[in-house]
């Protein structure tokens, strides 16, 4: 460590106290994670030189030696459009415009495990694309070169989305090894504890389905990331950044332990683990979260699981700016919020980033808002110079201290969950849900009592009786009816006996460790089983997963 020539801390401290009336050491603020923040950080606050280089264990400063100098983060906007046709149209436009990544958000009916014909037509396509059959998927990916682009499927337990994609690959004569991408949010535990977007099969059943998915892709789809562990839901549901980091890492430990039990070797599957986080506006705290996350994950993989391959140690994450922090009041202010959140993600070393549209607190984004969102990333990447230097605020006394504190805080939770018997047990007991619920309530109380300022909400409000927002985009019910008609025709056309046989094979796979559920799922979608039928079958075998709400 560089010696400080002359340390005037005492002098400064005296001045500070004189002006503020309290000693600096006691003039504390607290960040979202409850870590005390002092008015100043100095060389006294940091340990001996712990800073490694980027790409060097334990990766505090970044996963790769070159970071954004070598390759920028992926600007990955998750898009759901109301019908497969419209999704396809938009994606083809984006590929023409130079995009090399596709992401698909399905309709909420899909996430609840139903086909579009099983829910109220008013809700079909409101939040994503309804994909029920292989036919829908073929429409969605028509003329999209699935062997040349990276594909993120927001594809929860059941993994029918990837199954359909692989059937398309078969039909186009593309080898599975050419298929790259991620089963986004395949982390069923996160859905069990927060947001409950996708959760619908019991914990035990979900575990077997995930493990089969890992085993299958490990063997046949080697460039696919089957595991994406999600802190985003937890933080959106109220967890503090430290809690979200801790709970995801504990989840990662559980998935690793369970996969090891299946006989896979750590270095064959760990490199395919990815993470997905929320990025709040608490900028330094978020940067510290990601730096601490890299450190903890690397240490765990190396020391606890004996991983040798450096790729196994890398804590790769996708970040999404926090939607819960966006306000309905003076919505344009959200553009500023998103910018700060995005900066935190970039300074934290994200591998890919999604920026929210400013109008998310009002409904589904309009086109202009979506464009501003992606341009926020473009401006940061290409105008601001933020990506010119690797880990540009590394070495800041404050950030380094905060990273250490964040790490300490997170290890505390991890240890507690270890003692409870791991993440599955902690979730069964409702511990994680309780912690998240309490944090959410505490936050809301701080907002309500103006301890936490939200501009336009509890301070600097204006009269907003007149809504200047442009018209909403609405799902065209005619398109929904057309989609439903197509589903009906598809169901009438297919060979019912093959469908029944395929579903009964899935049933056999659920209670036979020799058979692979995912393999049977691929077969099932290829003979015309619908998403809803497959999930219903799994749900019958394993039971419905009721979130343990505390």
């Amino acid at each position, binding site marked *: 460590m560089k010696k400080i020539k002359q340390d005037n801390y005492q002098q400064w401290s005296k001045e500070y106290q004189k002006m503020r009336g309290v000693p600096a050491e006691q003039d504390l603020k607290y960040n979202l994670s409850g870590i005390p923040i002092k008015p100043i950080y100095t060389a006294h606050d940091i340990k001996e030189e712990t800073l490694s280089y980027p790409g060097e264990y334990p990766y505090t400063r970044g996963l790769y030696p070159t970071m954004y100098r070598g390759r920028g983060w992926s600007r990955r906007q998750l898009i759901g459009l109301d019908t497969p046709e419209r999704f396809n149209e938009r994606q083809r436009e984006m590929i023409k415009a130079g995009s090399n990544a596709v992401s698909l958000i399905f309709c*909420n009916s899909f996430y609840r495990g139903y086909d579009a014909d099983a829910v109220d037509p008013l809700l079909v396509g*409101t939040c994503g694309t309804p994909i029920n059959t292989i036919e829908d998927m073929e429409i969605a990916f028509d003329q999209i070169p699935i062997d040349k682009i990276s594909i993120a499927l927001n594809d929860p337990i059941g993994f029918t989305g990837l199954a359909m994609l692989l059937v398309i690959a078969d039909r186009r004569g593309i080898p599975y090894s050419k298929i790259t991408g991620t089963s986004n949010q395949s982390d069923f535990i996160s859905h069990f504890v927060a947001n*409950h977007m996708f959760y619908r099969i019991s914990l035990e059943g979900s575990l077997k389905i995930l493990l089969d998915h890992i085993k299958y892709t490990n063997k046949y789809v080697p460039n696919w990331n089957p595991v994406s562990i999600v802190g985003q839901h937890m933080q959106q549901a109220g967890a503090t950044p430290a809690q979200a980091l801790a709970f995801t890492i504990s989840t990662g430990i559980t998935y690793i332990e369970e996969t090891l039990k299946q006989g896979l070797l750590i270095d064959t599957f760990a490199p395919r683990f990815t993470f997905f986080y929320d990025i709040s506006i608490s900028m330094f705290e978020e940067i510290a979260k990601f730096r601490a996350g890299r450190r903890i994950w690397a240490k765990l993989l190396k020391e606890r699981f004996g991983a040798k391959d450096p790729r196994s140690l890398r804590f790769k994450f996708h970040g999404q700016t926090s939607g819960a922090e966006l306000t309905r009041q003076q919505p344009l202010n959200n553009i500023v919020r998103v910018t700060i959140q995005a900066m935190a993600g970039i300074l934290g070393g994200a591998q890919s980033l999604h920026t929210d549209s400013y109008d998310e607190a*009002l409904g589904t984004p309009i086109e202009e808002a979506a464009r501003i969102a992606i341009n926020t990333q473009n401006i940061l990447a290409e105008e601001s110079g933020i990506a010119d230097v690797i880990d540009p605020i590394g070495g800041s006394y404050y950030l380094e201290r905060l990273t250490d504190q964040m790490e300490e805080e997170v290890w505390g939770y991890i240890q507690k969950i270890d003692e409870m018997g791991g993440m599955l047990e902690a979730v069964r007991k409702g511990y994680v849900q309780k912690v998240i*619920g309490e944090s*959410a*309530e505490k936050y809301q109380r701080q907002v309500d009592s103006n301890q936490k300022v939200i501009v336009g909400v509890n301070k600097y409000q204006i009269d907003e009786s007149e809504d200047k927002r442009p018209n909403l985009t609405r799902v065209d019910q005619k398109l929904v009816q057309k989609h439903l008609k197509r589903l009906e025709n598809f169901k009438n056309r297919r060979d019912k006996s093959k469908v029944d046989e395929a579903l009964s094979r899935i049933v056999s796979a659920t209670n036979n460790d020799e058979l692979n559920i995912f393999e049977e799922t691929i077969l099932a979608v290829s003979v015309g089983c619908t998403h809803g039928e497959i999930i219903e079958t799994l749900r019958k075998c394993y039971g419905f997963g009721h979130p343990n709400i505390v």
Partner: protein
Amino acid sequence: MERQIKVLVTKIGLDGHDRGARVVASSFRNAGMEVIYTSPWQKIEDVVNITLQEDVDIVAISSLAYDHLIVPKLIEALQSEGLGDKKVLVGGIIPREDEEMLLNAGVKKIFHPGETLDSIVEYVENIMGKTSMK
């Protein structure tokens, strides 16, 4: 003895984001109300059934992703079971364009993001005439 206000806090439709519902439910509890709290994705007939069996005063629906579009169907179903006297509140992300439709359908009040918990509680206490018996 003072009659306690009984509230059903629930989510209908397909979305599972329940942070708002949870926080509101616990504020009602902290204000001395008795709260029936359910998991998300309740079917309309389930909500009618709970409302009937539990004899709640208030049905509070949290919606973040267009599930509010089926609230009019819920109110219709409540009415046809003779539960039209229950007060239906909606909170969450409700586009301004849909407010009129909801209010016309019989929703008592819509709460948007940014509303304080205290003001929601106060509203409920007011419409229930808190200190008097029903």
